[in-house]
C-alpha cells in the first residue's frame, strides 16, 4: 500500500461562544493515502469546513495529532505554518478567490512568489499549468473576463503550483453550473490520475462525491460512514457503469454513453 499523506488522530476542535462550547470536530480519525481522491460529505454544520481548515493548516486543532506529509503540524507555530501552507497544501475555494487585479498567469504565479524559483521559472510553470487545466491562450485574462468554470480552473492551477502533497477543495463546484461542474470534477480526477495528485474534496453534492474513489460521511464532527466511489474504476480506465474501456479524456463512456 502506498504511503500516508495525511493522518489525524483524535483530532478535536472546540469553539467557545460565550459560555457555550461547540465541538466542531470530536476525536476525528482520518487517513488519506498518497494519490487518493477522497470526498468528505456531510450536512450543514457537520464540521466539514472546520475539518478542511484544520487539514489545510488555516486553523489549529484544539487537541489531537495531525501528520501532513510526515510533519506533525498540530503544534507548529504560525511562523512555520505558512511554509506548510505554501509548500504542502493547495487550496481550492468555493468562490475561487482569485485576485481580481491580477491576470490568470499572475494568479497562478502567486504561491510561487517568495520561493526560490526565479521570475521566468515561475512564469513558465504558471503557463504550463494553465495549459494543463485547459486554459491555453487565456493566460492574460483577468478573472472578470473568465467564466466561473474557467476561474475555478485557474484556482486549481494555482493550487498545484508548488507541487503540494495534497489538494484541499472546499465545495469546488458550489458556485458552478452543471456543465462546469462536470468539467471541474473531471479536471480534478484527471489531475489525480495523470499527476498522482492527492485530492480531498469537501462537498455536499452527492454527484461530485460519487465520482471520487472514497466518500466519507461526516456528522457532528465524526466520520460515521465510508463508501467507495466511481473513481476507482476510472483509475483502471474502466467505465464504472458498464465496465467498457475508457480514456481519461473521454467525457462520456464510448460504449454506454453515460457521462463520466
Amino acid at each position, binding site marked *: 500500500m502506498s504511503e500516508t499523506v495525511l493522518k489525524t488522530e483524535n483530532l478535536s476542535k472546540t469553539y467557545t461562544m460565550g459560555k457555550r462550547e461547540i465541538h466542531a470536530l470530536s476525536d476525528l480519525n482520518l487517513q488519506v493515502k498518497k494519490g487518493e481522491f477522497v470526498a468528505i460529505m456531510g450536512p450543514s454544520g457537520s464540521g466539514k469546513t472546520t475539518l478542511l*481548515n484544520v487539514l489545510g*493548516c*488555516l486553523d489549529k486543532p484544539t487537541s489531537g495529532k495531525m501528520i501532513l506529509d510526515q510533519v506533525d503540524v498540530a503544534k507548529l507555530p504560525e*511562523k512555520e505554518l*505558512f511554509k506548510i501552507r*505554501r509548500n504542502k497544501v493547495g*487550496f481550492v*475555494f468555493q468562490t475561487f478567490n482569485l485576485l481580481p487585479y491580477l491576470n490568470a498567469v499572475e494568479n497562478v504565479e*502567486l504561491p510561487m512568489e517568495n520561493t526560490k524559483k526565479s521570475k521566468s521559472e515561475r512564469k513558465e510553470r504558471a503557463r504550463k499549468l494553465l495549459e494543463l487545466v485547459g486554459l491555453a491562450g487565456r493566460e492574460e485574462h483577468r478573472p472578470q473576463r473568465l467564466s466561473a468554470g474557467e476561474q475555478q480552473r485557474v484556482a486549481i492551477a494555482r493550487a498545484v503550483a*508548488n507541487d503540494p502533497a495534497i489538494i484541499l477543495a472546499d465545495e469546488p463546484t458550489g458556485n458552478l453550473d452543471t456543465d462546469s461542474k462536470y468539467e471541474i470534477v473531471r479536471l480534478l480526477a484527471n489531475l489525480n490520475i495523470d499527476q498522482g495528485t492527492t485530492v480531498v474534496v469537501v462537498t455536499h453534492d452527492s454527484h461530485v462525491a460519487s465520482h471520487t474513489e472514497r466518500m466519507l460521511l461526516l456528522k457532528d464532527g465524526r466520520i460515521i460512514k465510508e463508501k467507495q466511489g466511481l473513481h476507482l474504476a476510472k483509475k483502471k480506465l474502466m467505465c464504472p457503469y458498464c465496465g467498457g474501456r475508457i480514456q481519461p479524456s473521454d467525457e462520456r463512456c464510448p460504449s454506454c454513453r453515460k457521462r463520466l
Partner: protein
Amino acid sequence: MVIVALGFSMAIMISIPAGIVANQLSAQGLAENFNNTITNMQAEINKTSTLIECRTSSGRGMFSGGRPTGMPGGSEQEVFLNETAVDEIRSIDGVKDVVPLLETSSNETTSETINGPGGRSFTISRPLYTITGVCLNSSFIDNYSILPTNITAGRNLREGDSGVLLMSSNLTYYFAVGVGGKVEINDESYTVVGIYEQAGQGLFETRTVYMNISDAQTATGNTGNVSMLDVYAKDTSDVDGIAEVIQVAYSELQVTTYKDRLSSVQNMQTTYNETITNAQSTLSQTQTIATQEIVIVVVATSLIVLFVMLYTVRERTKEIGTLKAIGFSNWNVMSQFMLEGMLMSLVAGVVGIAIGSVGAPLLSGLLLPSINPFGSSGRFQGTFPAANSGILGVGAATAVPDPQLMLLALGAAVLLGALGSLYPAWRASRTRPAEAMRYE
C-alpha cells in the same frame, strides 16, 4: 479622492516653508531698503550744515537732496512767495547766500498701480512730474548742490541757460524724447540738454524737470514767485538765529535747519526700526503658526492614510485570507500593505507637489499672515491700508517652493505613508487565513 485629499496636505506642506522663505526675503529686503535710504539721507544732510531750508508748502521738509515731490498727499494747494523776499532775507545778518527755487507740479497727473504681495495692488494718483526752477548762478551751481549730479546723457544746466531743461531719466519714457529733443510745457517749447539718473524706487521714485527759474516762472505762470529758498549761513553758529528771524518775518514759510532735518531723519529711523521690529515679530509669529500648521498637516495626513488603509484592509479581508491560505507569511502580507500605503502617499506627494507649485503663493497667503512692515501704529498705516513691501520698492514676495523642498516633501510623503500604514498593515498580517472561506 484620497489622492487629492492627501495631495492637498502635501501641497500645504511644501507651500508653508516656501511662504516663510518668501516672508523672510521680504523682511530682509525691507530692512536693506530702509538702511540705504537713511544712510543716503544722513550723508546728504551732513553736507549741508549751514543750509536753512525755507518752503512755502508743508510736508516736504524731510528730504533735502533728492527733493522727492509728488508723493501722495503732496498735491495740496500750492502757495508761493514773492521774489522780493530773496533780497530781504539776504540782508539778514550772517546770511551768505539765498538761492531761490520754484518747485511746482505739472498740470498732468498720472494714476499708478503699485503691486503688493499676495496679489493685492492699489492705485495712487500723482502729478506726472515736478518742474523745478533753479537760479542758474554759476557760484550757486558750484557751491551748493542745487542740481542733480548724476548726468547720464547730455550736460547739466549752467549759467545763462534759457529755453532748455534737464530731466530725470524716467521722464524720457513719458515725453518720448532724448537729448536734443523738444518738450512742450504749457505751450512753451524747451530743448532737452541733459538727462540725469534718479535712484528712487516705488513711492520714492521722482520725475523732475530742472530749468532756469525764470523759464519755470514763465512756463507755470508764476512770474515773480518762488516756492523755496535755500538760505546759506556764513557760519554754522548763525543758523539758529537766522532761522528764527526768517520764521518770524515770514510765517507762511516752513523753516528747517540742519538740526531739524537730522532729527526728522532720526524720527524716521525710529519709525523704520519699529517697522523692522514689527516685521520681525510677524515673521516669528508666522513661523510659529507655520510649525503648528505643519504638525497639523502631518498628523492629518497620517490619519488619512491610517483610515484609508484600515478600510482597505477590512474590505480585502478575504483577499488577505486567500494570500495567507496559499502560503504568504505575515511579513509578506505586512510588507505588501506597507508598500501600498507608501505608493499611495508617493502618488499623493506628486499630486501635492503639482498643486503646491501652482498654488504655493495662494496657499501660503491663505495660511500664513503676511508681513505688515508698518505694524498697527506705523505712520503710513492710514495712508496706505495695503501698505506692504512692494510699495517701498522691494519686489512683491512670492512663495515659490524650491526643488530641494519638493524632494524633501516627497520623502516626507512616503514616510507618512509608511507611518500611517503601519498599524493597518500589521492588522492585515494578523488576518486569520481561514477568513478566505468567509465573506462574500
